[in-house]
């Protein structure tokens, strides 16, 4: 006989899961009792939302679904923001929650919460398990659904009696058969041909690359296509890292907080090839204007994204890898007219300005701009939300590494737990967090997770004593009335670092900051650097 809880652990093992992030409680105790003896590492976070963010960071850096676990009731509801963040960023994740006994469901007993109901809008799929014998099939399906098609979180809610009941034997299915789930990955040949014709006929094409290029693992294919065709590339926030920042045909991030040159190129283009991006309102503020003059080719695994925000002439539904291969095969020796690439190069040169320096402060954009040269080429930078995110998005010079942030939900507090996950996925790489003083305080409890596991994560806090991005909004749109954006009562962050036994320093100039960073990059211990930033520093 084998219990449901043992089956859960065996399912995770069968899926090759080596680490899960979570927080226990009564309703999930049978599972915790079994994972205790297993080879799977359980990382205790300090709040459930962060378990989901850590699973997200893990998933993005390992290419495998991240797994997080919580108990019923408050444990489960604490997860919601993390699940919603993963959903909007299309991150593959399997979320396991304990639930009250099946025969008590619906009676509002202690720590009962209808978590499958509450998460309905934020999950790709969810299960409330009603029989122990269903567990293997459900786990198999959950991992399959989370990691295929457009990736996303899948929730499995498991009542405690399902965990304690036993069945005769454990058999993990080797196939799934879900009638209603057969993502189309091929890419329609005729549509690809039409796209190729349109590209060949264009004079000023651009590529807009989003997170889909990274999650399908085809950034090198895209680079090959770009090197061949010389079509300039713009990325969305989630797409940062599809091209090395220094690539001559890479123009940076588009949108409200993006690079002027990227927006200008998009505006002037006669053909836009959208790759794995949904072109949300932050990316393209006036989508109807864009599609009036331009032909849009949209490649996405999710048919519902095509035509949702921007009118599309040539839709291609399929996996980015397949479609990119088809495009490369069919494009022949087409290359963009020199005139267009020359114009772009000219704009790019024109627009670079060194930001002004304020005495006694670190200039964050310049610091982030220099950061890459102090790190190894595959470094992973995790940016939080706010001005710090924009500074990083526009100035970090990515080489072969990753840029992680939450583009869809913009959840403050994402960076530290996500970095924890990233470090478990890629222990050999530099993992750097850049966050604001506000966002730091949303997840500083995870310093314990970092300290407790001696994770080599370097954290840079950009301290402007403001909720900077909202402060800026108030300056621009609300007559400079700083309602609730001045951070009063903030603690001494160095003492906090000290309390967790994490090495730390403070910098009030770029020279100082850079010297400190150079001194610690090669250490194998966590570090916190507090940078004093001039409060009125703009985002762009």
């Amino acid at each position: 006989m084998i219990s449901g809880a043992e089956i859960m652990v065996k399912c995770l093992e069968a899926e090759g899961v080596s680490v899960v992030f979570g927080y226990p409680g009564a309703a999930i105790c049978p599972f915790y009792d079994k994972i205790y003896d297993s080879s799977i590492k359980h990382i205790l976070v300090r709040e459930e939302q962060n378990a989901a963010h850590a699973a997200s960071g893990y998933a993005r850096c390992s290419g495998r679904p991240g797994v997080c676990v919580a108990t019923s009731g408050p444990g489960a509801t604490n997860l919601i923001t993390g699940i919603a963040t993963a959903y909007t960023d299309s991150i593959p994740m399997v979320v396991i929650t304990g639930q009250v006994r099946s025969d008590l469901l619906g009676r509002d007993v202690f720590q009962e919460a209808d978590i499958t109901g509450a998460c309905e809008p934020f999950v790709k799929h969810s299960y409330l398990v009603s029989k122990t014998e269903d567990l293997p099939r459900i786990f198999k399906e959950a991992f399959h659904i989370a990691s295929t098609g457009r990736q996303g979180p899948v929730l499995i809610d498991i009542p405690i009696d399902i965990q304690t009941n036993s069945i005769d034997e454990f058999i993990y299915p080797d196939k799934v058969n879900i009638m209603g789930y057969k993502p189309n990955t091929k890419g329609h040949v005729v549509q690809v041909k039409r796209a190729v014709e349109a590209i060949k006929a264009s004079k000023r094409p651009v590529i807009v690359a989003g997170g889909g290029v990274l999650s399908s693992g085809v950034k090198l294919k895209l680079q090959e296509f770009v090197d061949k065709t010389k079509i300039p590339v713009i990325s969305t926030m989630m797409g940062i890292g599809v091209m090395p920042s220094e690539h001559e045909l890479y123009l940076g991030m588009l949108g409200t907080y993006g690079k002027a040159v990227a927006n200008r190129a998009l505006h002037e283009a006669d053909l836009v090839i959208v790759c794995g991006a949904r072109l949300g309102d932050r990316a393209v503020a006036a989508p109807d204007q864009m599609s009036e003059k331009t032909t849009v080719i949209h490649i996405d695994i999710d048919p519902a994204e095509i035509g949702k925000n921007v009118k599309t002439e040539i839709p291609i539904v399929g996996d980015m890898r397949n479609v990119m291969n088809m495009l490369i095969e069919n494009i022949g020796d087409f290359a963009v007219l020199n005139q267009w690439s020359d114009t772009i190069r000219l704009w790019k040169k024109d627009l670079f300005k060194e930001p002004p320096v304020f005495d006694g402060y670190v200039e964050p954009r310049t610091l982030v701009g220099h950061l890459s040269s102090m790190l190894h080429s595959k470094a992973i930078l995790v940016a939080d939300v706010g001005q710090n995110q924009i500074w990083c998005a526009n100035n970090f010079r990515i080489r072969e590494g990753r840029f992680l942030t939450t583009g869809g939900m913009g959840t403050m507090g994402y960076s530290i737990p996500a970095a924890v996950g990233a470090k478990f996925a890629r222990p050999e790489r530099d993992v750097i967090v850049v966050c604001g003083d506000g966002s730091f305080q949303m997840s500083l409890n995870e310093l314990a997770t970092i300290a407790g596991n001696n994770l080599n994560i370097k954290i840079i806090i950009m301290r402007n004593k403001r909720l900077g991005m909202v402060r800026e909004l108030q300056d621009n749109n609300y007559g400079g009335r700083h309602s609730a954006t001045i951070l009063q009562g903030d603690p001494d962050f160095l003492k906090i670092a000290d309390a967790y036994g994490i090495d730390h320093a403070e910098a009030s100039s770029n020279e100082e900051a850079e010297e400190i960073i150079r001194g610690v990059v090669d250490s194998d211990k966590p570090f916190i650097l507090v940078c004093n930033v001039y409060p009125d520093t703009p985002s762009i």
Partner: protein
Amino acid sequence: MLYTLSILVENQAGVLSKISGLFSRRGFNIDSLAVGITNDPNVSRITIVANGDEYVVEQLEKQLNKLIPVIKVKRLNEGEFISRELILIKVHCAAAKRAEIIKTVEIMQAKIVDVSPSCVTVEYCECANRVNTLIDLLKPYGIREIVRTGTVAIDRGTASVSV
């Protein structure tokens, strides 16, 4: 504009809430909804009549298709399908008006299924337009209660929506 969608779903707990949740979440309006099992006991059919422009209905179809338990979604083409609703109408019926009401019911090919001294109950199974006509015709006598199902619809000829 009204659209009729025929949706096949896996017959499992929570499907209906997933579908109705999707409509309300994305601001789509449902005019009517009908659910029932099909010849395969694992598969249910949901027929939805919804209101919206081309963009809305296209989004709707795509979003419905993304729900894992949804097996198939088909928009039925105007004029190429047969649709029915079932309605029960309880009408106030004074003795003096009884003959008139019976006549109307006969002309419309409806059926009186219950009679009491002061009212009759009429049963009618027709497309939404004809059902509305009957309601209009009976309104002057005083309608006490209406019980009406959502529309069910099926393709004309050999076409079908099946797994």
